[in-house]
């Protein structure tokens, strides 16, 4: 359990994305944030039909194009080149956020800098005064999508826990996170604690709690 063994224990980033993908019901409308979340799209089981929304005006986002068929006018919210599926629809930004704010998106997967034990999310600002802050659509997503899940490594690269009692970074939303998928565990946010519903192979509860500032419990059915 030394720090240096941290890289080899627990799930890889791709595993986190897969864990999320396996939990997405057939027929869901899903918005994916940047980082691990965007890896979820490629992990959806072949027998499920999941529709991806990107807030810059497309429902039915498809996989990245071949490098030689990139279209500069077809990008996602992360400004990457994408494709559109058969049955896609384009719309303007106000309509796109009608979908988000109006509760029409079933699930949103976001990255996190910190999540508190009551589900507060901080993922938009380091709180430093001199760098230009940038929020994008993060606050709209957490305010409008009922099912917000977070995909993140359990700790920062320096080993600092990201799941905390109370966020130190500026908040994106209060009490918005439902479930957290990390390299070490999958946890539901409850009124009292983060309830571990699954541990990564070879990881035990104490190992996770040691790397978590928030209080963890084992979810009982």
């Amino acid at each position, binding site marked *: 359990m030394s720090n240096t063994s941290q890289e080899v224990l627990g799930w890889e980033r791709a595993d986190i994305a897969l864990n999320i993908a396996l939990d997405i019901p057939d027929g869901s409308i899903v918005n994916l944030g940047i980082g691990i979340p965007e890896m979820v799209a490629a992990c959806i089981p072949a027998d499920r*039909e999941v*529709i991806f929304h990107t807030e810059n005006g497309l429902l039915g986002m498809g996989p990245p194009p071949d490098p030689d068929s990139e279209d500069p006018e077809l990008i996602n919210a992360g400004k990457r080149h994408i494709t559109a599926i058969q*049955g896609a629809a384009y*719309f303007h930004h106000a309509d796109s956020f009608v979908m988000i704010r109006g509760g029409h998106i079933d699930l949103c997967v976001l990255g996190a800098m910190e999540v508190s034990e009551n589900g507060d999310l901080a993922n938009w600002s380091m709180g430093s005064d001199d760098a230009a802050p940038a929020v994008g659509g993060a606050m709209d997503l957490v*305010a409008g999508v009922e099912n917000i899940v977070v995909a993140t490594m359990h700790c920062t690269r320096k080993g600092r826990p990201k799941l905390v009692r109370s966020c130190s970074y500026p908040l994106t939303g209060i009490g918005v996170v439902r479930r957290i998928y990390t390299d070490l565990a999958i946890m539901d946010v409850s009124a009292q604690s983060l309830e571990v519903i699954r541990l990564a192979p070879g990881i035990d509860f104490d190992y996770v709690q040691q790397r978590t500032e928030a209080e963890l419990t084992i979810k009982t059915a």
Partner: protein
Amino acid sequence: MINKQHDTPADAVADIFDGATVLIGGFGAAGSPIELIHALIDQGASDLIVVNNNTGSGHVGLAALIEQGRVAKMICSFPRTAGSTVFPDKYQAGEIELELVPQGTLAERIRAGGAGIPAFYTPTSVGTELAQGKETRTFDGREYVMEYGLTADFALIKCLRADRLGNLIYNKTARNFSPVMAMAAKTTIVQADSIVAAGDIDPEVVVTPAVFVNRMVEVGEPLQESAMVASSVSYP
């Protein structure tokens, strides 16, 4: 696999419950989802709160639903049109409630409801009877009325064509309130002249994206309310 298609209008409206709020698309006869309304008449739900620009004409469609005594309250902008006697008679008899809303405010309230906006300010109706009892507020020296977003349990709308996923296009001015109603209902039920494969509607021309559509039923040659009224048809 996404499958929003139902076999019959009856299947599509089966769970509309007593007391439900139901948005019904159409402006006058244009865009009126007659088959869905008739299925709702057959289905039996009562004490409905119905939102439509008008109150129907003759004795078919919305007018017939009202005539059957199934509507407790209408929210609309213009409850009397040429050929409309059912609602005016019931209203005079005190048998139905009316919430009269200016047409643009009605459209905006429905859109706001669908957009997660609980309230907004509008200059429409300031200083009139329809602003009585409503909160007002001055911005930049002009007075505005606060209006609330409007959501509903169900929307019944008609479109020209739907694809398998639920992307819709409409026919001329039959579009009217239907796209915003599709946004504002928990369950949006669509009758389409035809349902085509995903990809058969150009993504650039979709008017109602599939995210706003829950159920669809194909009604190949829909009844035209205006023709039925002209020939004095009654339903049922």
